[in-house]
């Protein structure tokens, strides 16, 4: 089952290199588990209107080494709750990348993305063609292909469904 293309607007561009995603909800909110509370806290220090402007399908854009530090899961949980379907960045920090791909949350490493898009441009990630398209401006850029393991995990919708698909239940294994 191939990955479904992402298509939506650029909801926000994090231009800071080595961006610490915990800042999205703020460190003081990192331990909140209620998803509505988390989503309400998200982005308030960057754009107070964010939650009301974002639409399902929107995409985030980041700079180099996005997710550096000790990234936690709540910030992107909040973003998914608000309808964000993926992140495209110049490059990613490995810990963040692994963590979010294991949540089934698409991450796209696309050198040059900051020059390709402006906020609120309509864009598309075409997995098969391997490009990010700026539909507003009519331009495009290739992105770095996913490792097969990452692609399978995203297709499955995250770590647990991926492992379930590829690992028989132990009880079943005994029958073979």
């Amino acid at each position, binding site marked *: 089952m191939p990955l479904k293309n992402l298509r939506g607007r650029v909801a926000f561009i994090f231009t800071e*290199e*080595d961006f*610490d995603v*915990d*800042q999205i909800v*703020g*460190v*003081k909110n*990192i331990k909140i588990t209620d998803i509505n509370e988390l989503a309400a806290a998200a982005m308030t220090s960057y754009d107070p209107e964010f939650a009301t402007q974002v639409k399902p399908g929107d995409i985030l854009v980041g700079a*180099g*080494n996005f997710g*550096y*530090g*000790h990234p936690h899961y709540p910030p992107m949980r909040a973003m998914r709750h608000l309808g964000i379907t993926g992140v495209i960045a110049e*490059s*990613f*920090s*490995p*810990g963040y*990348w*692994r*963590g979010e791909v*294991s*949540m089934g949350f698409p991450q796209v490493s696309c050198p040059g993305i900051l020059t390709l898009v402006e906020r609120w441009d309509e864009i598309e990630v075409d997995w098969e063609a391997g490009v990010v398209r700026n539909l507003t401006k009519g331009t495009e850029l290739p992105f770095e292909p996913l*490792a*097969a*393991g990452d692609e399978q995990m995203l297709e499955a919708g995250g*770590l*647990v469904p991926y*492992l*379930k698909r590829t*690992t028989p*239940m*132990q*009880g*079943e294994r005994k029958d073979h």
Partner: protein
Amino acid sequence: MGYTITEKILARAAGVPGARAGDELMAKPDFVLAYDFPGYTDVYFKSMKEDFGIDRVAEPERFAIFIDHMVPATTPKEEELHIGTRSWCKENNVPLFERKGIGHQVAAEVGYATPGAFVVHFDGHISQLGTFGTLAIGMRRNVLEAFVREKVSIKVPHTVRVNLSGELTPGVMARDVFHHLVRTMGPSSCRFQVLEIGGPALKTLSTEGLQTITGLAMFTGAITAIVNPDEDRLAYALPRARKQLEPVFSDPDAHYAAVYDIDLNGLEPVLVIPPTPSNTRNLSDYLGLEINTGYLGSCASGRLEDLRIAAQILQGRQVKEGFMLNVIPTSQEIMAAAGREGLISILAEAGAFVSSPSCDYCFGRIATMTDKQRAVSTGTLNVRGRMGSPDSEIYLCNAAVVAAAAIEGQLADPRKYL
């Protein structure tokens, strides 16, 4: 073309004759390690049973669990988590190391730093086993894969080679070397790659110092760090090793994605200013900055050489009134050795609060700071809120700088006390 130590270890673990950077393999970890933490181990244990029907792990000797966070427990809920961990380990016959110290250090002490082995954990600081020629990777939640099946999928990483030359002067430590690497190479210089440390300076760096450097590798973007182990490191690791493996080494003509030559001559003590581990500065530019508290410990620093230099500086002196100095040796083995050397009494007499090994000072569960307070710390990280209020500040530095700051209540150059 030759192979890197990383390519050799992964090829063996995957059961293939050779592996090159970029290959995607299924590799069998020699050891699967974890510490108990809410939302991690408790979730894996439940998922193993409910999602995968695993009542008992096969080959329990491949697994080990550490109880090093929330030690001692301060709420019934924390103790409940530990009870769950103890009973899972007992049911599964999996070794459990509790109250022995910080797991990444204890793992080396009890033989999981087997030279040539492939080890996985969810926490990236396990990279410090690389000191002994072990390939140890923090996979975050993906480590569940290693709990539910024999092999994990892995893309063989490229390697960035760093050749260290020169020699450190007194008061300049491995901690400074690592942060100097981040400053020189950049916080994304080794992204998704392995940081391989080599060069003539390795002979003069202590094994403990190398554990500091390899343990912090993630802040260069690396997925782990590794060293071709020399005689001293093999002499430590081989007698303790839990598995008989032939140590492996990078071939002289191995391919590296990049090579850096870094000279340690003339290196001064550095300071990492908040709020990110990428902010390396010269300590000399910040002398005199008021500091309220100091933390000497963590899986990164808090070993004997750190305690020794702090004791040397604090011997016959006093921690400044109102300054809170916490000294937490990294493991029980280290604490006992420090006791035998008399270091613990020197530190206590100087006014340090000395406590048993625990991860809790490093991630801010104990001794948390309030707004506007400032710490010097040998912990792993200085992001906002790591040690308390998001409006407190953490300055990372070596153990000697912590001791000097404790005497003066401000950032000070430790070399005048040596």
